[in-house]
């Protein structure tokens, strides 16, 4: 049913229908509406879950870890500093192959302190072994939760997943979102059926330490699971389309890529603004298209290469910066296009809530056409 709903509440309702057994989270802007809403559902018995009000994000994710190990479906949500505080537990969950889903309402990381959006927080955890999905709008943000649980809990994958949506820009925006019924979600997302759990009837030791003769193999196994998850995401996306009508069967999505000479690459809500800007530029005869990356981990290298093979130039919009290097998406795209001769220009944009307008997208396309890239876009004059 189409509902006119705040992004955070679309997410919390989607989470409710995923039937988590244990929810544990700590308030942080701009994620807070999600967990407030879940707490309310538990208080009103519309969600049958244990809600653990922890004293920090670190404990939130640690509690989720314990819950998943004990065989329950767990959920958390956070942003920015909260995710940074969870760093250690993030690596631990993936390493222990404990699947769960966490929503990231993307927000810049201090210092300076900023509550506003960029994607530095989740990007900083790209190496942790979590699947990472980025939503363009609140429909995707909600939908990706059903898909994320399905993929994460698959016996061949068993890895945690982050559903990332831009803080405020999506989390605090009211827009129409098609929400399925509980029955429809139940038919899509099976009950969590862990292959091993903490159980006195069948004791197992979790979280052992590995000598050098084993450690690499376990890390290899995690990487293998992530590599294989691409196929599982496609499968789950295909089934999603059959059941709900929206197509997530690819890890990337092209927009007006046909005959596009300049192809923009972006993740998250910026894609929407870019699409409008592209329509205007196309109207003016400029051959511009967009490649939206929905799944950043595992990185869809083959899809990206295939989608970009006809481009004359690629302009990557990164809402993050690997300080001392380049934007994280830009680096990936350069890697994928290595040897193709297609120039990849990286633009660091929208950090700490700097608004990105259609005209900014158009200016970046102009810069790319001139071959000017690998820069922070739109810096204040006193800096430039």
């Amino acid at each position, binding site marked *: 049913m189409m509902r006119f709903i705040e992004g955070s509440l679309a997410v919390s309702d989607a989470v409710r229908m995923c039937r988590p057994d244990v929810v544990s989270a700590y308030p942080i802007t701009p994620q807070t509406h999600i967990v407030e809403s879940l707490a309310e559902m538990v208080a009103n018995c519309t969600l049958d879950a244990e809600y653990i009000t922890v004293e920090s994000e670190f404990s939130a994710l640690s509690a989720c870890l314990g819950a998943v190990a004990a065989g329950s479906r767990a959920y958390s949500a956070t942003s920015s500093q909260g995710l940074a505080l969870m760093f250690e537990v993030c690596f631990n969950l993936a390493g222990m192959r404990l699947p769960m889903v966490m929503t990231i309402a993307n927000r810049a990381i201090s210092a300076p302190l900023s509550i506003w959006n960029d994607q530095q927080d989740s990007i900083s955890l790209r190496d942790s072994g979590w699947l990472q999905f980025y939503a363009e709008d609140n429909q995707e943000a909600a939908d990706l939760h059903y898909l994320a649980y399905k993929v994460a809990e698959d016996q061949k994958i068993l890895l945690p997943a982050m559903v990332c949506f831009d803080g405020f820009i999506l989390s605090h925006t009211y827009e129409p979102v098609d929400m399925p019924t509980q029955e429809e979600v139940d038919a899509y997302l099976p009950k969590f059926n862990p292959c091993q759990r903490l159980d006195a009837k069948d004791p*197992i030791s979790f979280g052992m330490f590995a000598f050098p003769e084993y450690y690499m193999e376990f890390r290899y196994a995690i990487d293998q699971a992530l590599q294989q998850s691409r196929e599982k995401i496609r499968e789950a996306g295909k089934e999603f389309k059959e059941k709900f009508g929206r197509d997530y069967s690819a890890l990337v999505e092209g927009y007006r890529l046909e005959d596009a000479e300049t192809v923009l690459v972006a993740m998250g809500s910026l894609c929407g603004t870019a699409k409008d800007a592209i329509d205007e530029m196309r109207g003016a005869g400029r051959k511009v298209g967009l490649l939206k990356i929905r799944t950043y981990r595992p990185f869809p290298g083959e899809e990206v290469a295939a989608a970009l093979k006809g481009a004359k130039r690629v302009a990557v919009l990164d809402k993050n910066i690997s300080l001392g290097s380049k934007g994280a998406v830009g680096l990936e795209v350069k890697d994928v296009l290595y040897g193709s001769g297609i120039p990849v220009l990286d633009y660091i944009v929208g950090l700490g809530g700097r608004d990105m307008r259609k005209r900014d997208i158009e200016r970046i396309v102009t810069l790319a056409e001139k071959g000017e890239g690998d820069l922070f876009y739109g810096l204040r004059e006193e800096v430039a």
Partner: protein
Amino acid sequence: MALSVGCTAKPGKSRGNRTGAWRVFKPAFKHNKCTKCGLCAMVCPEGCIIEQEDEFMIPDYDYCKGCGLCAEECPAEDIEMVKEEK
């Protein structure tokens, strides 16, 4: 051996590690003045001192590290630490 998922293991595997090899001194259970009180078994950090059918205690030398705690604690002074020639 296939690796477990997420570095887990079922019980029993630690027995593959025969810590008896660490031993320099060996507790000799003389069973002369032994009152079968069981304190030696209780205080052994390895848990490797086992009651026999005759209720006397015998350490499992596969795992005994030779720490001497049993000999020190034995109220009957019936356990002697002897240099082990392997």
